[in-house]
């Protein structure tokens, strides 16, 4: 099963996501802000990062920028899970480099399914890229 890093400063919400992921059999890692997440990403190399946007120390936008800048990490799939749910927030997140966007409150019945879809998508994308690279 894939390893998923949950980055979220709000403890109840972090625990909720960890609980849901583990309930569906994923290995879930946790970080409380971007800086902590960056260290963990480099050390643990998770398959997917689920990331809040507004956080202390380093927010989600800064984190995704760091990841995309790093040639080793650049392809890491990242999904924003955020209470920034006003018009334009989705576009802003996608433009900043996130692969997906889920608005809070999350729907616990579909949350994990959406992350699974994102994992499949990124794997398909990566294999297509590799195939294109070989041609």
């Amino acid at each position, binding site marked *: 099963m894939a390893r998923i890093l949950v980055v979220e400063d709000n403890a109840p*919400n972090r625990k909720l996501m960890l609980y849901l992921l583990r309930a569906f059999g994923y290995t879930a890692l946790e970080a409380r802000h971007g800086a902590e997440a960056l260290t963990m990403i480099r050390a643990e190399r998770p398959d997917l990062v689920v990331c809040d946007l507004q956080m202390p120390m380093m927010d989600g936008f800064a984190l995704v920028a760091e990841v995309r800048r790093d040639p080793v990490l650049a392809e890491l799939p990242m999904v924003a899970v955020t209470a920034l749910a*006003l018009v334009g927030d989705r576009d802003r997140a996608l433009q900043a480099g996130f692969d997906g966007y889920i608005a809070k*409150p999350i729907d616990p019945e579909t949350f994990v399914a959406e992350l699974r879809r994102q994992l499949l998508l990124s794997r398909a994308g990566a294999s297509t890229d590799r195939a294109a690279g070989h041609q």
Partner: protein
Amino acid sequence: MNEPSIRNLHAIERALDESENRFRLLVEGTKEYAIFMLDEHGHILSWNAGARRLKGYTEEEIRGRHFSIFYTEPDLADGKPARELQIARTEGKYEEEGWRVRKDGTTFWANVVITALYDADGQLKGFGKVTRDLSERRRIDEALRHSEAQYRLLVSSVKDYAIFMLGPDGRVQTWNAGAERIKGYKASEIIGQHFSVFYPPEEIEAGKPVVEIDTAIRTGRWEEEGWRLRRDGTRFWAGVVLTAIRDETGELRGFAKVTRDLTERRRLELDLLHKNAALEAALLAKDRFLASMSHELRTPLNAILGYTGTLLMRLPGPLNEEQDEQLNIVKSSARHLLSLINDLLDLAKLNAGKVELNIEPVDCQQLLDEIATTLRPLATERGLAFEVLPAERTHVLRADRRALQQILLNLGNNALKFTREGRVELSFGVEANGELAIRVRDTGIGIRDEDKERLFQPFVRLEEFADGPTGSGLGLHVSQILAKSIGGRIEVESEFGCGSCFTLVLRGG
């Protein structure tokens, strides 16, 4: 003397007679000038057509009368006629302009020339007098003088504008009441001074007065707003127009300067600017507040709905019936709270005019199919049919897709909520008046006539639904505002107990 010489003399006399005759005819016929002869004492000897016209006397009436008859009482008392003759006698000629009297007693302004006539021996034979009526010219002169005086009075008494003249050298020549009021100098204090005294030091240093004068000379005019000094050294914001004044030959005569005190206007303008900036800042703060309110309210809701969900999904373990029911109430209440938050944010944005419309072509059939796809699961859950009635042909309108979707989802949701059995139908069509009507019809409980008016007000809940379906109480209100923002409206028809039809009417279907 021999005959030929006598004949010659006759010829000369004849020629002289003829010439004198012609001359007499010329004089007598002249109408514009009174031309007549006086004897050495001033008695009238001859009269011409002009004299008759000007003075009103016939030749018979006037011949032999003394010319003083033409003078006014004061002139007579002053001995003027005799004096004029005396001057003419000694100097050869007397000329003046003055009042003269007609036969009918009226006066006219006359130009008079009296010429002393001497014979070959130097003996005074009398006087020639030529008189011209200058009344008309005098009237025009008077009118001019009058209008000039009025103009001067007008300018000098204007209080709101400083209006004054500068000489070609830039020195103040005239001063009016406005100039005194605005600048604080009295005429006696400022006339003769260079106009640069009105400028603050930095403007003088920057060469402003010179630039103004040069520009006015070159282009005829200089206009600006800027700081000027009053006599007491205080500054005022002035609107200034400097105009070069030239005579008919093009020679520079000086400058007319009109200055207005715009200090108050400038203060109001600056005030307004500050207020606008403050307002913009307040709007921005409101936007930020709305964004963070949305964020802060969603964060705890995420945990509430999330953990309610995990419990209902029985992830931690089984639930008994009671627990399941109560958790479902928590869930629907939390969802209600969420819809309130969403609608309130929509409303705040709509009221602030913050909704940006993105006008694009929207296919009606496709739009309704999308709405049906979204709402059909809910309808099925409630045992209702949810249909889109087929149209003869589809219709593409230009509108904001998001606004249309939100309105129709609201109306569709409402229809489902208030229908216990039967169906909800969506349809569209272009009306006879060219408007596009999108209808959401249900077989629900309907609305009483007296309630229809209140329906679109915020937080209105009709009595019969007190225990019924819940909503934010803002859905129809937001929908109506949204409809207006895209140039449309929502109309309602309903028969209580039988069903309702909400119609989104859009212009230029």
